[in-house]
């Protein structure tokens, strides 16, 4: 029996998530962002994310998004993969939140469908929100994809982020991977025991029950992972074999990213 489309999509998503988070393939590719000191990348990309959040102009947000696309291309991050896993998901969620504004904001009506009427200021507000989310998510995803997770944690630590927060992030990362892996196994296990078609209501019940079991299972496993980290001496401090050293190109890249961020804040006012 073939899997339900929703189950198939969720399974594919969780497999891809686990693969991306664990393998860190993009982080080890030879590209522009991969060659930059993680501290510079962290500060520079976060400055661009803040600039996206502060921007009130559609054209500035489009330019920031273009910067993200350019950086992705120069860092050998697949645009197709970004579109499927980041842009589409960010668009769906942000559009769901922004859509009511198109119809509730007063102004000149630009589109009408029955009693629904979208106004020009409404569409502008919705576009701003969607673009802000797209730009911010693209830039932060690039930061995570092009930096090995432990390096990112160490970069955060060198920027005085408390040990407790670092420990929390380290655990969250592993927890998400565990959640994805366990979800895969549960889907496969359920699929192997199902015969015939399941009615919509039963399907929903099963999905809710599975979700509950999945959460409690992964929480228990998350506790075990934390214990396994403690058992090998983890105290929240990130220790790596490689030491961070600033080179000329790091200073240049840092300056370029910060200047771009400042320019975006000024232009986006």
């Amino acid at each position: 029996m073939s899997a339900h489309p929703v189950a198939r999509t969720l399974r594919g998503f969780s497999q891809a998530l686990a693969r991306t988070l664990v393998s860190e393939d993009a982080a080890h590719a030879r590209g522009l962002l991969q060659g930059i000191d993680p501290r510079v990348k962290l500060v520079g990309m976060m400055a661009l994310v803040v600039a996206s959040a502060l921007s009130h102009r559609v054209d500035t947000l489009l330019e920031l998004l273009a910067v993200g696309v350019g950086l992705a291309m120069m860092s050998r991050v697949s645009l197709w993969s970004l579109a499927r896993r980041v842009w589409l998901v960010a668009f769906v969620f942000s559009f769901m939140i922004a859509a009511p504004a198109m119809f509730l904001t007063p102004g000149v009506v630009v589109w009408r469908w029955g009693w629904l009427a979208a106004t020009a200021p409404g569409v502008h507000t919705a576009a701003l929100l969607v673009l802000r989310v797209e730009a911010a998510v693209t830039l932060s995803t690039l930061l995570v994809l092009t930096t090995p997770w432990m390096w990112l944690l160490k970069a955060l630590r060198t920027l005085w982020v408390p040990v407790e927060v670092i420990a929390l992030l380290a655990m969250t990362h592993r927890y998400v991977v565990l959640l994805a892996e366990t979800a895969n196994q549960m889907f496969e296990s359920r699929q192997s025991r199902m015969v015939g078609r399941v009615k919509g209501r039963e399907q929903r019940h099963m999905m809710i029950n599975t979700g509950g079991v999945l959460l409690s299972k992964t929480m228990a496993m998350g506790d075990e992972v934390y214990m396994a980290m403690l058992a090998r001496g983890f105290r929240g401090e990130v220790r790596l074999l490689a030491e961070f050293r600033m080179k000329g190109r790091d200073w240049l890249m840092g300056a370029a990213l910060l200047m771009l961020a400042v320019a975006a804040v000024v232009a986006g006012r």
Partner: protein
Amino acid sequence: MHDLQHNPESVTLRTTEFEASDLHFAYEGVAALRGLSLNVREGERIALLGANGSGKSTLLRMMDGLLFATSGTMKFRGQALTEAALGDDKFALGFHRQVGLVFQNPDVQLFNPTVFDEVAFGPLQMGWGRDEVLERVNKALEWIGASHLRNRAPYRLSGGEKKRVAIASVVVLEPDVLLLDEPTAALDPRSQSQVIELLGSWNDGRKTIITATHQLEVLGEICERAVVLEGGAIVADAAPQTILNDTALLQRANLVHIHRHTHDGVPHRHSSPYLHHEHQ
């Protein structure tokens, strides 16, 4: 309860590593340990036997300072393993350097992107220098025969490879005490014997190895003392052969079951495929 059967003179000269005294522990109201007391001496190879839920894993986690008794005390070399003691970074680091735990499920223990990072995780936490970390990790990978896997993602390894990497990630710290939770569970026979051979080759006679298991067929190879747990308490503590000869005890502790089969159409029953047994 059985008395310790192996040569007492060989252990009386050795120092006491663990002293567990009247330990009680419960998971959300469900008792896991009920008044358990146990002494472990330096260099002993002990098997903790018991069915699922008998308290083996809980005891190992207490010995590794990861869980703390609701009442009773657990001491390592005279120092009580309390939440306050393990909350001290200096003590915790020193303790985890001396006592290593290999978890039952290698997936929870393997959280780094590559096998190399995984094995290097412990030495890096200890704050050792780059050269020392590299040397120890290379040595550990060579020892488990996994040098060729160093750049592979741990989650892509087979069950046996994962288990060997999990063992290497603990043994790389060269602890004095090694705690193993079901090291051969869910492994194929070849991987099982590889893991047992590895552990045998690691022990130099001074290391203390405590192995939780319910696999009686490996008992002779992993210990000189077997402790049987049932319902969170110790019901026997003796030499492995003494335990293996006590069928009633093994049945009561749910370590063997009555096995029924036929020979030439004649029904036949015995306790376990692993206990010594001659067919007529």
